């Protein structure tokens, strides 16, 4: 009964570590990314534990600062940025476009090794004493004052950046060159569009952060005056360079999640998406305009008012394509056939949380209001609504949606529903109070805080506890499903798309014969191919 598939086609460690199969590489990423997710989560939990009381009693100030730094570095560079593209994108893009693999399979494997090498640097930095600059590495603190392992951590970020660049390159070439016959651009799944836009950002943005951390290292080691005013440098220059990458990096994290949500919403409403081309082009618009808004992070750093105004207005403009997506997803479920399976619960969670995250971003783009809110917990809450409420919800939703395809096994649906509920409740309890305490004025990165902020912090810590249970649960039922789960049919959800036409798990070469595509992805109703809107 054992048919040959990508999992049982080759045994032993070497067959995995030297594989060029995009599906196996995706699993390599899945394992390493999961490791970093729980590591980053552990750091987060230490932060929340410390903030349970106003006094600094659990950790020393120094260790607390290292915790939030390592939390940020690990979560941003080693979990959020690679998560959806490297795991789900890697696994699905070739299958979704009817190809046998990515354009450059060997490069794909190298990308994973580069990622791991960067990760090792970061782990070494963490284990040998940690870094305390904040994940933002602001100068001149990072180059002149901090006496922690800045260089090692910066090198980790530098190295892993190449993994992003190469993955982005691989995706772009694959999407351009390897689509099956008949798979025109406007028949592509929106997941693929989202990854195309993401890849553009990865290729264009990542070199800038690589150069920036290299300059930090140069100033720290060789005392070249770049950012430190004592050496004739300009500290605000660093902030420009850093955010030139790190704002678009937000879109590296959220665009793929938007792609996942587009797929899930269509599959569980059994209905093609509302406004296909608006969603597709809004991804591109976000990717491009997203490069022009970085200055909204430095309104109070003494940037010229006129520059500030430009950044403010462009930040508002980039909000519009995100709004368009949310409205289109909502319209998609209108008159659908909606089933509330666990992936759809995550998608609904995403819709709610991303909407709040996006709207609270509007507060921060208003210059006069940002003066008060900048560097407070309001900002912390806002970006966690985007990154955790948005990106992680999308990642988990996607993982649940495609798990039967990836492993060929069905997981326990009631357990998955419970986890989705816990994540949603835990998340809101953790981060909603932070909006309030932020407006009250609690600054971020505070080891101790005035007692009147405690109520909110207790709620946050309680929420974080629930959230961690919600995140740990899938570990159990996913692993359990691998050993004990019922085998999954090719299309367990009754969804449409090339990935559901191949067996679960797919064979190594994906398709025995290259498929010929005659219509867009999620065509459930036997409709004539209506012109895309």
């Amino acid at each position, binding site marked *: 009964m054992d048919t040959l598939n990508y999992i049982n086609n080759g045994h032993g460690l070497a067959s995995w570590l030297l594989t060029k199969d995009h599906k196996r590489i995706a699993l390599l990423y899945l394992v390493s990314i999961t490791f970093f997710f729980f590591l980053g989560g552990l750091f987060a939990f230490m932060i929340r534990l410390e903030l349970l009381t106003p006094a600094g009693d659990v950790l020393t*100030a*120094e260790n607390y*600062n290292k915790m939030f730094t390592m939390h940020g570095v690990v979560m941003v560079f080693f979990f959020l940025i690679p998560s959806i593209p490297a795991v789900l994108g890697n696994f699905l893009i070739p299958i979704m476009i009817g190809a046998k693999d990515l354009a450059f399979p060997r490069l794909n494997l190298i990308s994973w090794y580069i990622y791991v090498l960067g990760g090792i640097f970061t782990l070494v930095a963490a284990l040998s004493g940690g870094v305390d600059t*904040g994940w*933002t590495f602001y100068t001149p*603190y990072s180059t*002149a*004052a901090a006496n922690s392992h800045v260089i090692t951590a910066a090198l980790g970020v530098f190295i892993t950046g190449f993994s992003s660049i190469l993955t982005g390159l691989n995706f772009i070439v694959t999407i351009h060159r390897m689509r099956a016959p008949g798979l025109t651009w406007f028949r592509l799944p929106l997941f693929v569009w989202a990854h195309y836009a993401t890849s553009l950002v990865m290729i264009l943005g990542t070199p800038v952060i690589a150069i920036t951390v290299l300059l930090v290292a140069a100033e720290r080691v060789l005392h070249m005056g770049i950012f430190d*005013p004592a050496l*004739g440098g*300009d*500290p605000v220059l660093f902030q420009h360079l850093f955010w030139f990458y790190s704002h678009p990096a937000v879109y590296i994290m959220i665009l793929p999640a938007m792609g996942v949500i587009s797929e899930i919403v269509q599959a569980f*409403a*059994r*209905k*093609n998406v*509302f*406004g296909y081309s*608006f969603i597709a082009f809004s991804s591109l618009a976000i990717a491009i305009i997203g490069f022009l808004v970085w200055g909204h992070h430095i*309104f*109070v750093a*003494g940037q*010229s*008012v006129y520059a*500030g105004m430009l950044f*403010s207005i462009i930040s*508002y403009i980039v909000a*519009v394509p995100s709004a*368009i997506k949310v409205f289109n997803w*909502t319209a998609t*479920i*209108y008159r*659908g*056939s*909606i089933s509330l399976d666990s992936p759809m619960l995550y998608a*609904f969670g995403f819709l*709610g949380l991303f*909407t709040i995250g996006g*709207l609270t971003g*509007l507060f921060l783009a*208003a210059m*006069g*209001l*940002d003066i*008060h809110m*900048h*560097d407070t917990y309001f900002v912390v809450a806002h970006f966690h609504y985007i990154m955790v409420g948005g990106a992680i919800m999308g990642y988990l939703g996607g993982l649940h949606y495609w798990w039967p395809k990836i492993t060929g096994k069905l997981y326990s649906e009631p357990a998955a529903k419970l986890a989705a509920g816990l994540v949603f409740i835990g998340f809101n309890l953790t981060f909603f109070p932070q909006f*309030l305490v932020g*407006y*009250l004025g609690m600054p971020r990165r*505070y*080891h*101790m805080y*005035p007692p*009147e902020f405690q109520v909110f912090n207790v709620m946050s810590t309680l929420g974080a506890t629930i959230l961690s249970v919600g995140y740990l649960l899938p570990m159990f039922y996913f692993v359990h499903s691998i050993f004990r789960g019922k085998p999954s049919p090719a299309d367990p959800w009754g969804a449409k798309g090339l990935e559901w036409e191949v067996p679960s798990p797919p064979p190594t070469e994906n398709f025995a014969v290259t498929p010929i595509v005659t219509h867009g992805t999620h*065509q*459930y*109703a036997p409709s004539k191919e209506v012109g*895309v*809107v």
Partner: protein
Amino acid sequence: MFTNFPFFPQQASAQAGQVDAIYFFMVAVTAFFSILIAGLVVYFAFKYRRRHRDEIGHAIHGSLALELLWTVIPFFITMVMFVWGAKVFFDMYRPPAGAMEIHVVGKQWMWKVQHMDGRREINELHVPVGRPVKLIMGSEDVLHSYYIPDFRVKADVIPGRYNVLWFTATRPGNYHLFCAEYCGTKHSGMIGTVTAMEPADFQAWLSGGRADESPVAAGEKLFADLTCNTCHLTDTQGRGPMLTNLFGKQVELQGGGTVTVDEAYIRESIVLPQAKVVAGFQPLMPTFQGLVTEEQLLQLIAYVRSLSQQGEAPGAAPQSPTMPQSSSRPVVEKK
């Protein structure tokens, strides 16, 4: 000591109301759209729930009219936010003429303050209510940020340049002062109290404690101690330019271009004299980088300024019209 209403900060400055007004507008917009989306999703999910296994949804591909509607409406709402936010920022950016000046220096991990009559404080700031106060802020080491939540004001304090923060306190009381920009180990200990007092109480407080020399007097002394006065004489015979009546003027630079003399330019002249050389002079002024502290720099600047405003009370110095609040680089206009 701090009797905050736990869900909302106090409005203790003239600016606070304006900031809160945008905030409430934003909260209303956010609540409206979040409830709209959540309501629709829940309603549709219930109304169109799958009733049998093989059911499929209706094929609806989109609607151009709707797309335009939900592009244009968010666009206009965000433009309102942009204009409103920018206007409030503008108002909060320009200190009014005649604001009371106070020097603030941030260093790991304390706030050092000096009033114009010489009185110093650490991690505290006393100000009168009803009068605009302008903080001229520098840093001795890394980035910091001066933040008074109940006043809704904040500005980064950046080494190598001066940033300005101004406010008018409206209500006597004690308010939190926080460092908002991460600055190392004891970042969360770099906090203090801002005390707003009735003007009469403030005067009493000012004349109370032991006042040091005023920054101008201290600057005058430094000017002699650091031998500035050997080159900068009170006539044009010195090796360096005469500094009398210099502040606020335009200076011609070697190699073309002019620069307006402001705090940032004087600072640069002292720490990086070669950066801009005055036309007609040799670049022989030595750098004083490392020889003067950030506070002494502020005192030297106060002294040089005082040479241009004889007869005016210190602390009520008129605002020079061209002082950029933020750039360490004076504006150089190429001719």
